C-alpha cells in the first residue's frame, strides 16, 4: 500500500542545514498498521509529514498504491491518504462548528449528500448527532480527537497517518481512542502509520514498527518481538526499559517512610 524508499528530508542549506530524515525505507502492506517510534528529533513525524506533502522530499521515493506521489499532491492523493494530528486542541478550527469542519472536505471534493455523510461519520467515531453543531470549545479533548478522526475518515481514505494521536489525552481517554482506532481499522480495512514515542501504544496498535533515532532508522522489528523483550539494538532496548517505568539502579536503603 505504502512504499517509502530511501527517504531523505533536509531543511535549509549551508550552516542552517538540518538533516531531519536520513535514508529511511519501509514498506506497509494494505490493511496493516505500521509504527514509527522514537524520541523528539528522531524524524518520525517528519517522515509522516513528508508522505502527505507537509514536508519536502529531498531525496528518495514515496509510493502510494504503487504510484509515486507528485508534488504538489493531487486531490486523488488526499482521497487516499488522510492524517490525524497530535493535539486535538490545535487541529480543529476554533470558529468552525463540527458540522462545518466535517462538511469542508466534502465541499472541496464536490461530494453529494453531505448531511447523511456527516451523521454517518459522527456515528462511526461514537458520537451522536447532538454533537453536530457544537464548537470545539464545547467538546472535551477526547471528543475533539474523535471529530478529527471523523474528519480524516469522511473522504473514505485507505491510509490514515496518525501523528501521536493520543499523547495529548488522559490515560482513560487514550484507551477509548486506541480502541476506536483499532475497531475502525478492522471495520473499514484501513492502513495505518502511527507515530508515537510510547512503545506500549505502538505495540498495541501496530504489528510492525521502525525505531528511529537522530533521523535514521535504527531497527525494524515486530510488536511480538517487543513484547518478548527481544531487541538487537541497544537503543531499542533502552526504550523498552524506559517504558516499564522507573527502575532504581542499586536499591539503596531508602529511608523508610516514618514507619
Amino acid at each position, binding site marked *: 500500500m505504502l512504499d517509502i524508499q530511501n527517504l531523505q528530508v533536509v531543511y535549509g542549506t549551508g550552516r542552517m542545514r538540518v538533516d531531519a530524515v536520513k535514508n529511511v525505507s519501509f514498506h506497509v502492506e494494505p490493511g496493516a498498521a505500521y509504527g514509527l517510534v522514537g524520541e523528539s528529533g528522531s524524524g518520525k513525524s517528519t517522515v509522516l509529514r513528508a508522505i502527505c*506533502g507537509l514536508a519536502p522530499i529531498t531525496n528518495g521515493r514515496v509510493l502510494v498504491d504503487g504510484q509515486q506521489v507528485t508534488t504538489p499532491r493531487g486531490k486523488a492523493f488526499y482521497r487516499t491518504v488522510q492524517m490525524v494530528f497530535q*493535539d486535538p486542541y490545535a487541529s*480543529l*478550527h476554533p470558529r468552525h462548528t463540527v458540522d462545518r469542519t466535517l462538511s*469542508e472536505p466534502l465541499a472541496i471534493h464536490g461530494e453529494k449528500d453531505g448531511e447523511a455523510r456527516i451523521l454517518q461519520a459522527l456515528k462511526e467515531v461514537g458520537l451522536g448527532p447532538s454533537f453536530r*453543531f457544537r464548537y470545539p470549545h*464545547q467538546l472535551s479533548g477526547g471528543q475533539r480527537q474523535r471529530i478529527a478522526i471523523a*474528519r480524516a475518515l469522511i473522504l473514505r481514505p485507505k491510509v490514515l497517518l496518525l501523528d501521536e494521536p493520543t499523547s495529548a489525552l488522559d490515560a482513560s481517554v487514550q484507551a477509548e481512542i486506541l480502541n476506536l482506532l483499532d475497531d475502525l481499522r478492522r471495520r473499514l480495512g484501513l492502513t495505518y502509520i502511527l507515530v508515537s514515542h510510547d512503545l506500549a501504544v505502538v505495540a498495541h496498535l501496530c504489528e510492525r514498527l521502525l525505531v528511529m533515532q537522530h533521523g535514521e532508522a535504527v531497527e525494524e522489528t515486530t510488536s511480538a518481538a517487543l513484547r518478548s523483550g527481544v531487541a538487537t539494538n541497544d537503543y531499542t532496548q533502552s526504550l523498552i526499559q524506559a517504558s516499564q517505568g522507573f527502575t532504581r539502579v542499586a536499591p539503596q536503603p531508602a529511608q523508610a517512610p516514618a514507619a
Partner: protein
Amino acid sequence: MTGAPLPLASEPSGMRAWLLSPEPHSRWQARLGRFYLGWRAFSRNPLAVVGLGIVLLLILVAIFADVIAPYSPITGGDLRTERLLPPSETYWLGTDDQARDIFSRIVHGSRVTLFIVVLVALIATPIGLLVGTVSGYLGGWVDTVLMRITDIFLAFPRLILALAFVAALGPGIENAIIAIAITSWPPYARIARAETLMIRNSDFIAAVKLQGASTPRIILGHVVPLCLSSLIVRVTLDMAGIILTAAGLGFLGLGAQPPMPEWGAMVATGRNYLIDQWWVAAMPGIAIFVVSLGFNLLGDGLRDVLDPKAAK
C-alpha cells in the same frame, strides 16, 4: 487544571436555555448562541454599551434626519433677523452666519459622517484584510512585494496624503473618502498579516491543506475569519480618527463643499465668530467629539469580547 465542572448557579430558562444549549440543533442556534455569549460579555461593560448607544443614535439620526430636523439644513432664514442667534427655544442650538438652524445642520451632517465612516470601512477593511492575509499566508516574494507597498503607504502621514489626493482629484466628499480609505488600510494589512503568520502553521490549517483545499479557499474560509475579529476592533477604534480626518479635510475646505452640512466645515465657518458666537463652532465640535468617543468606547468593548488576548 481548574476543570471540575460545576453547574451554573441558576438554571437558565426559556430563550436563554435555548441560546446556551450545549447541544445546538441547527447552524443558526449554534451561531446565535455564540452571539449571545458575546453580547453577554459585551453588555457587562457599561461604557461599551454607552458607546454602542451613541453609534446606534448616530445611525438612527442619519436615517430619520428629515423627520427630526425642524428646519432645512441648506436654506437659512431671514439674514437680517435670524443670523447668528444664540441657542433658544426656536433654534435649539442657535443659528449660523447664513441664518441656518445649527441643530438641523448637525442632524443632517450625521448622514455625511455616517457615509464617510461606512464607506471608508467598506473600502479599507477588505483591502487591508486581503493584502495582509495573502501576504502572510503565501510568504516569500509575494509577502515582500505586498509589504513593501504597504510600507510605502504607511510612510505617508494620513492627512498629508489625503490632502495631496484631494488636491489632485479636486475637492469633494467622495474624493476625501477615497483619500482617507487609501491611507487607512496599511495598518489593517499589518495586523492581518501578523495574525495570519500565527495561524498559518497551525494544525487546523495543515488539516484543510490535507483535504486538498485550494489556497483561496484556505485564506477566505479559514484564515480570514480568524483575522476578522481583531480587525473589526481596530477599525472601530480607528473610526474616531477617520471622522476627525474627514472633519479636518472639511475644515480645510477640501472635503465636503458648501452648502453641504459637514461637521468639520461647520466648525471652520464658526471659527470666524468663535469669541462672540461660540455656539456656531462649538456645537458641531461637540458632535464630532461625542461620535468619536462613541466609536472608541464601542471599540474597547468589542476588543474585550472579540480579542481576549489584548484585553487587560
